[in-house]
């Protein structure tokens, strides 16, 4: 799978349905030009006033093409959607499988953004397959058949039609895909900046209003809209030019076909009964492909999306997994880190960190943003391997353990745990599918969320995530804490569990957490050296180095 690429692999899996879809598509396009060709022949032949019986064949053919066109369209639509659904199912599963080992540490500093891009890319690939690849393929084939038929009747018209098809179905679409690229990129860029603007307005709107700064946001929006309009108008102008050109080329092509037919007629190379056939074939086949080119303006982005997905296969996994699970002590021992070093893109994030977490420890880890706190946490939970130094839990070195083994002992709640689009209970049961209602309620209470539960319209069954019920950043974090409390692993790392709470409540939540881990070890990452709880130790990460702090001078 890795070498073949996710999309090709998915296409291969769906081959039977795809083949049916393409065959039906061919039937539709062939019937379309068949209908045009035979009805033209029928009518001109009728004008010669022959015996009615001699018209039976063209009359029958016209009816047949009409029926096969409709039937073919039906099969084509159902099979295309069926195969597209299948392909997208496989692509999604493959992409998820590719992402699994990479998340969260293998995708660079903005992991969440990369994942967002991936989700959007998958949707774009779907468009590429259903809206463009199929129609273009079948109409090209039908075009070639039309060219051949016209060529049999009047040889030179084949060349004209072929040129027309080449221009409208190949050259113009390629041109269209290329010319709109920069404006399509600019529109994408502006869209994401607009998202961040409205995000700020929705979250901190009151702050802007009270500081008299709403005008500056409106100005910012206007600037973005100006950029968007410029790109959009550039793009629609391109689309206008391309669809105008398509119309013009089709028209010129048809008139040229008529002229060539006239010459052939005068030279006696073609009978009068067939005089309308090449022209009407031309009209219908050029109509078939005419709509594709304008919709392709700026389409190269979608190919880039496809390539970006395929490139996921080549990203190096942040963790090396041993083939076999390693031996582990039956009781969790202490976690010991020795001389840890980690570098990203030549920038040393952690240097020579030695550190241990034993039963009963409550360690506060402070330090400025970018000081390496999150990287250290990821190393401890084996989401990431160190460049140098070693880690062990009890007597088992991390190098011998699979990451899932480490995570049976070490829990890590990051600072923005995902809220799934399911009920509050479902969100908690991610951690422990068998948890009872009492366990869920106890975990929420200990994480300081009982008030939230009390105000939820449907209690534990309230739907969360997506656009349903939004949680604040702090509630989201404490939902993560509640999940962790359900499984209560021996060693646990919390990233900013109480941010967004007032000090009184924060202290309460922190002590209830610490209370529950009396038999284990807790590491709390905190932006400021918090004094909410009686820590056994306080350490600070600054510029990649660890410093022990005197408890009284925290801050």
């Amino acid at each position, binding site marked *: 799978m890795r070498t073949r690429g996710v999309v090709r692999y998915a296409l291969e899996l769906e081959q039977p349905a795809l083949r049916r879809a393409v065959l039906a598509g061919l039937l539709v396009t062939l019937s379309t030009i068949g209908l045009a060709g035979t009805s033209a022949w029928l009518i001109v032949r009728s004008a010669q006033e022959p015996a009615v019986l001699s018209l039976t064949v063209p009359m029958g053919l016209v009816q047949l093409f009409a029926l096969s066109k409709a039937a073919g369209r039906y099969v084509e639509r159902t099979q295309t959607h069926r195969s597209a659904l299948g392909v997208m199912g496989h692509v999604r599963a493959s992409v998820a499988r590719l992402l699994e080992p990479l*998340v969260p540490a293998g995708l660079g500093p903005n992991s969440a953004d990369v994942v967002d891009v991936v989700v959007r890319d998958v949707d774009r690939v779907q468009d590429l397959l259903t809206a463009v690849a199929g129609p273009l393929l079948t109409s090209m084939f039908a075009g070639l058949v039309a060219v051949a038929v016209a060529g049999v009747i009047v040889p030179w018209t084949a060349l004209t039609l072929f040129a027309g098809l080449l221009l409208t179905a190949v050259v113009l679409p390629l041109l269209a895909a290329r010319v709109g690229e920069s404006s399509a990129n600019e529109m994408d860029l502006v869209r994401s900046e607009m998202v961040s603007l409205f995000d700020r307005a929705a979250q901190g709107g009151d702050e802007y209003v009270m500081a008299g700064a709403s005008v500056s946001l409106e100005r910012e929006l206007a600037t973005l809209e100006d950029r968007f*309009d410029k790109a959009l108008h550039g793009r629609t102008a391109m689309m206008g030019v391309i669809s105008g050109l398509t119309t013009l080329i089709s028209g010129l092509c048809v008139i040229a076909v008529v002229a060539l037919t006239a010459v052939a007629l005068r030279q006696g190379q073609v009978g009068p009964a067939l005089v309308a056939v090449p022209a009407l074939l031309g009209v219908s086949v050029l109509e078939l492909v005419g709509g594709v080119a304008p919709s392709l303006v700026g389409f190269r982005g979608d190919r880039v999306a496809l390539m970006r997905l395929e490139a996921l296969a080549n990203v190096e996994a942040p963790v090396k997994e041993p083939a076999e699970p390693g031996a582990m002590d039956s009781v969790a021992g202490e976690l010991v880190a020795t001389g840890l070093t980690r570098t990203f893109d030549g920038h040393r994030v952690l240097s020579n960190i030695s550190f241990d977490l034993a039963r009963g420890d409550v360690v506060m880890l402070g330090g400025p943003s970018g000081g390496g706190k999150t990287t250290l946490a990821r190393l401890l939970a084996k989401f990431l391997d160190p460049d140098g130094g070693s880690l062990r839990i009890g007597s088992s070195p991390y190098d011998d353990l699979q990451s899932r083994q480490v995570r049976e002992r070490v829990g890590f709640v990051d600072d923005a745990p995902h809220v799934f689009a399911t009920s509050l209970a479902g969100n908690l049961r991610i951690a422990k599918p068998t948890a009872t209602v009492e366990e869920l309620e106890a975990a929420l209470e200990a994480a300081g969320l009982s008030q939230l539960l009390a105000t939820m319209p449907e209690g534990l069954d309230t739907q969360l995530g997506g656009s349903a019920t939004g949680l604040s950043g702090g509630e989201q974090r404490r939902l993560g804490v509640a999940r962790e409390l359900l499984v209560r692993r021996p060693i646990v790392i919390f990233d900013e569990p109480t941010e967004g709470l007032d000090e009184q409540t924060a202290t309460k939540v922190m002590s209830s957490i610490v209370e529950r881990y009396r038999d284990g070890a807790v590491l709390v990452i905190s932006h400021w050296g918090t004094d909410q709880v009686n820590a056994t130790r306080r350490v600070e990460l600054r510029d990649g180095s660890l410093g022990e702090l005197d408890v009284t001078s925290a801050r």
Partner: protein
Amino acid sequence: MSRAERPSALLGRLRRTSPLVQRALFAAVVLGLVSTIAIIGQAVALASLLGSLFHHPHAGIVRDATLFIGATALRMLAVGLAEPVTSRIASPIRRELRRRALRQVLADGPMSSVDATVQLCTRGVDAIENYIAKYVPSLVLAAMAPVLLLGWLALHDLWSASIVLVSVLLLPVFMVLLGLEAKEKMEQRWREQQELAGYFGDVVRGMTVLKSFNRSSDAVKNLDEVGEALQRTTMGTLRVAFLSSFALELLSSLATALVALVLGLRLLNGSLGLSTALAVLLLTPEVFLPLRRSAAQFHASADGIAAATDLLANLEKPHRGGTAPAPGRVPSLEIRDVRLTHASRHATQNAPINATIPSGSLVGVVGPSGSGKSTLLRVLCGLREPLSGAVLVDGVDLASIDLVSWQKRVAWLPQDPTLPGETVRAVVQMGDDSIDDQSIVRALHQVGLDLDLNRQLGEASAELSAGQRRRLALVRCIVRSPLVLVLDEPTAHLDTENAQLVVDAISRLPMTRIVATHRPFLVDQSISLAPSAVTNAN
């Protein structure tokens, strides 16, 4: 998403939003009709050319060729101008909607959850633009272009016109017969597809959480299974869902075939000319084309309809606030029988709050977490309305005062300030260039902050400690020299020494000050909130 309403009613509301909607629609329809006329011209000229070839009279060939090229040029213009012109007219509609959405969000907060609001204001507004500039014109054209074409057919060949008319009229009958179920199935298919996409997004975005609990391989396997199950069940749905497209295709191709047969028979008995017959044949499929185009855009339009319904419902809310002038000097405040709702949910407070705050005094608001301190402060700022009761400013009800000018005179330190801006100066000014460096430096000094005005702070001032952020937000309030200062936990995250500095600074300020706090504060009086009992103790 709320329930979608009828397109005509929706369009009416959109038209009231902006006169440009009508103009965009008009331009798109006119260009569409011009292009239809050009198509008729092309067909007539082409048919006439082919007829001349058949009959050998060469007269008129040049005229017909010229007509064909002329019609082609006209069609090229109409087709080429359609997108650029409608998009240029519709852009200001999008901008206006988005600007009003921003104002609405700023004035009343997120419309639902933050994510949904952001989606609605960005992609939703784009969908509305598409709806206005693309779908509605295509719908109008689907009604008008066939009429034009049928009119031409009727003038030249009543027989064919009748055949086409009957098939066009049969279309809705067919649609109703199989349409109701098909429509439902179509929507079901659409929903299922969206759900699979949503589930995928959920799994990959939540991958870290799933991995953390060793559940990720289950989820990925499940994704495979959900996809396959969906494909199996959907095939049945698809068979019904596409029956309507089958009906459209069948009627249009059968009509074309039938027209061809009738034309052939009438040519045989000499009751029709060849050129007319060919023109009719060329134009028959064109009658069905606009119908097919608007059907193809049905789903793209559904997004636009949903977004427009949601957004308009929010934009049409009446604006809060009155017209009375805000006070020009430091005011006194009175809180009279005010009840609050919890900041984001439905819990209501039991006892009403009463307090009198003299001009220039310093008042503390105390109470346990969740008792409504922050909400009360927002009410004083005019950011929220109380559930009942009133706030009086120098004896005038705040609800009757012009909110914008009131908010200019009040400064507010929120519990969790976001501090947008790149440098210390930018964070404090927050877009107000009239605040000079000297007053910023003075205010920084007052709260014990020693920061260079040009210091780069990173995104949302993440470079600063929480205590520094808090004091910087306080500086942002002080430099605006408000008449009323409303502070939510100004000493949170501060050590004792710095907290005292901040307390002293606040005590020395001349304006009316209301401070929510957990710390003992030297105040003139304090309002104490509890879920059940509220007292006003001196």
